């Protein structure tokens, strides 16, 4: 039987051929025809792209302009004798300014690495929403995260208490209290101002699933609507503010919320608003972009922040890389100067990395002219050895010195799996984050002229 990965690729390949294409000419023509008048939606006819576009434009015109962000209407359902009415979508434009005190219970289950799980996984944040395009999140209480120091000790807190983020329609300002850095970057698109929180409506969370209304109880002194969503074996319970639709409590897996502000790479099992104040009196500097006194300011506004090959562009000299081979002996990338070296950064805890590793092993067998080395990130050598043995993969594997935990912020890159091809003179021949099928890997080698 084919592996799940193979089957997914086959299924996707078939889908890619079957999925329709929209003709840009039809799009332009339909928009032109309908102008700015509201048109009734034509009957849906999937075989007719023109009708599809017309339906799209009709909907767009009805909703109109920036108002696509906004929901409309309410839904009323009766279940088990409960009559419930609540906003169908999050009515951003109508939402009054608010301030929340939020508690997150973080999920230790995924992406925490091997350094163990801290006993206390409770984080607290204050969220200040000043209206469209005005948002501030303060970390009140952080958790000790798991990016270990080279000696194996847990690293310093990531986004320590006192850290904050301020967003307006042009700029994102981010202060990291743990090291006093203050970053200013451009804010890219005209997104929903609450997007930085990855806030979602009950309807988003219940998509495709079953939902049922349960007996409601107040949260943070507010009347709520209490919903249970069940989707594909996952179950969430939600408490939304009955008046505004604001999510006041969520229990479940992958609880939405801006965990990236405090804990990149892990998720939460519970989100709870401890206090909510609508129309609050904000402190004068709440939405100011000024750096705290003594902060190290780094202003990247107007600078291309796109991640990717720029981290180590082709031709750049690779950073130093040393460590110990799992089967003994010291490793130094510099010692391999004169050889072409393919370096894969991975971890046994990282599912996509294992695919990349397997594919690399296949290519390695066919390319004796290239030296293949794999480097562990945030991993225990014994765990990695077990994975290599189980999958019968024989590749020189290094437990590196000094690389930061999840590669984040490291000069090599910002995530794994990561493949770097190093030329004979120690410069980058190709830089490829992420993973793909074998032909993609072969393509990376081809593109590098290897």
């Amino acid at each position, binding site marked *: 039987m084919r592996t799940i990965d193979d089957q997914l690729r086959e299924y996707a390949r078939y889908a890619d051929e079957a999925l329709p294409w*929209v003709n*840009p000419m039809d*799009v332009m023509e339909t928009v032109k025809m309908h102008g700015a008048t509201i048109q009734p939606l034509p009957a849906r006819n999937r075989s007719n792209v023109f009708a599809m576009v017309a339906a799209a434009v009709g909907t767009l015109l009805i909703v109109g302009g920036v108002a696509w962000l906004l929901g409309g209407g309410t839904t009323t359902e009766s279940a088990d004798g409960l009559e419930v009415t609540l906003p169908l979508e999050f009515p951003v434009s109508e939402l009054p300014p608010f301030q929340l005190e939020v508690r997150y219970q973080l999920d230790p289950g995924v992406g925490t690495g091997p350094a163990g799980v801290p006993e206390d996984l409770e984080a607290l944040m204050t969220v200040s929403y000043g209206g469209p395009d005005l948002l501030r999140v303060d970390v009140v209480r952080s958790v000790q995260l798991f990016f270990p120091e080279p000696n194996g000790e847990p690293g310093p807190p990531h986004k320590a208490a006192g850290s904050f983020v301020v967003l307006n329609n042009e700029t994102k300002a981010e202060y990291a209290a743990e090291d006093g850095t203050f970053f200013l970057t451009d804010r890219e698109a005209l997104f929903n101002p609450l997007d930085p929180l990855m806030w979602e409506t009950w309807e988003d969370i219940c998509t495709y699933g079953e939902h049922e209304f349960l007996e409601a109880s107040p949260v943070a002194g507010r009347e709520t609507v209490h919903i249970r969503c069940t989707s594909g074996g996952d179950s969430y319970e939600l408490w939304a503010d009955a008046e505004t639709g604001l999510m006041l409590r969520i229990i479940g897996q992958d609880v939405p919320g801006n965990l990236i502000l405090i804990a990149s790479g892990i998720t939460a099992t519970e989100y709870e608003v401890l206090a909510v104040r609508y129309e609050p009196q904000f402190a004068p500097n709440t939405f100011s972009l000024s750096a705290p006194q003594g902060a190290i300011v780094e202003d990247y506004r107007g600078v291309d922040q796109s991640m990717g090959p720029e981290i180590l562009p082709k031709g750049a000299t690779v950073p130093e890389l040393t460590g110990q081979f799992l089967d003994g002996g010291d490793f130094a990338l510099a010692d391999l100067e004169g050889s072409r070296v393919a370096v894969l950064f991975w971890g046994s805890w990282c599912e996509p990395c294992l695919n990349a590793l397997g594919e690399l092993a296949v290519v390695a067998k066919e390319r004796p002219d290239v030296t293949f080395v794999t480097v562990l990130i945030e991993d225990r050598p014994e765990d990695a050895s077990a994975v290599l043995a189980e999958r019968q993969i024989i590749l020189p594997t290094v437990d590196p010195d000094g690389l930061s935990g999840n590669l984040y912020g490291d000069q090599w890159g910002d995530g794994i799996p990561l493949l770097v091809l190093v030329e004979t003179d120690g410069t980058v021949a190709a830089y490829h984050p992420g993973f793909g*099928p074998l032909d993609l890997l072969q393509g990376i080698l081809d593109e590098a002229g290897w």
Partner: protein
Amino acid sequence: MLETETAFEDFCGVVQPRLRHAFAARYGYADGAEATAEALAYAWEHWERVRGMENAAGYLYRVGRSKTRRIRRATPLLVDMPEGGIPHVEPGLPAALESLSENQRVAVILVAGFGWRLREVAELRGVSISTVQNHLERGMKKLRTSMGEPS
């Protein structure tokens, strides 16, 4: 043809391959196609604003997403299995994919199926790479369990 129209055609050539995959992964074949059409129509309607965007595909993903809330159906089937099935694909795979949460399904289909990079999914959705990685890991684990493959 006018310069603007040519530019829009070129633009569609760049973003449509992304959008049709992403919307199909999220909403399934039928609603996904509709969301793609809606997003492109929106782009043309607001061409002056959209043309200069660095992450136009990500922006339009939100547009199509917002619109599709109104029309979504019960099942997000990526594509119907043809009569006689797809070679080397277990008949239960579509159902197993449907059972994933939305975010997991999008990550699994785009990364493991269509071969997107984690970074590309993250940029489209406007979330961190590690968030996408989490969804992928969880989704693949669940998929393996439901398909009876040892993880």
